């Protein structure tokens, strides 16, 4: 049997596409802003959201129980009045997104990072919800 090397990132891309199709079909997901992806990172959940062009100080993040709320505003700079638009696809306005996390959290250890237009929130799982390795004692 031939072994074909597949880049882990390509595997992830394919997995995301497959899950998107399975969950929403060709119509795509809802129009809630910002769109989010939720990942399991073992001892934490990781939520990523695409919010390009929003400065990090305009984003508020709250965690209460198992609910993450992302709030903010995206401003699109307007050109001067004599400019003529050829295309206008980028939206602006306020947003508020509530994401239910599928497990218990240690909410006082939540960390958020904004980089290149992507918000990444790392939510550590509650101690009792983390995967545990059980040591087997020799008799």
């Amino acid at each position, binding site marked *: 049997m031939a072994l074909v090397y597949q880049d882990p990132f390509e595997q992830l891309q394919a997995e995301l596409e497959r899950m998107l199709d399975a969950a929403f079909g060709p119509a795509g997901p809802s129009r809630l802003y910002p769109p989010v*992806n939720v990942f399991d990172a073992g001892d934490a959940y990781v939520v990523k959201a695409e919010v390009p062009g929003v400065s990090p100080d305009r984003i508020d993040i709250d965690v209460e129980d198992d609910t993450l709320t992302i709030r903010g505003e995206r401003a699109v700079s307007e050109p001067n009045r004599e400019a003529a638009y050829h295309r206008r696809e980028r939206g602006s306005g306020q947003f508020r997104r509530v994401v239910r996390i599928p497990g218990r959290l240690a909410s006082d250890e939540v960390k958020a990072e904004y980089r290149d237009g992507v918000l990444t929130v790392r939510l550590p799982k509650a101690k009792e919800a983390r995967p545990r390795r059980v040591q087997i004692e020799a008799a």
Partner: protein
Amino acid sequence: MAPNELEARPKQKVERREEATRPGAYFQPAVDIFETKDELVLVADMPGVPPDGVDVDLEGDELSIEGRVRSGEYDGLKPLYVEYGVGGYYRRFTLGEMIDREGIKAQMKNGVLVLRLPKAERARARRISVDAA
């Protein structure tokens, strides 16, 4: 819904370019394009693309932009719930104006590309004043 509430615009996948050197998914970035007397300005949303991940190419009157994302930050992450695909960005435009290639400026910040394309001297709109007789 309040009029100033932001709506998501589902990412549109684009077919992989024939000459693409990197495999993987590509999406069409949302853009604003506007024109002033002196320049064309293109603003493109490319979340996940670092400043050194952008290529801008102008060949004849065809402008293409490409963005590549960092892949390492997904190591060890298992997707549970998915609303958007992840990949590079690619889009091509045909420009109706002569552009001064040397004067093109690109800036990438917070996942947004701002491209300023100054019009070539002879293509600039000239203001002609008409004297009343």
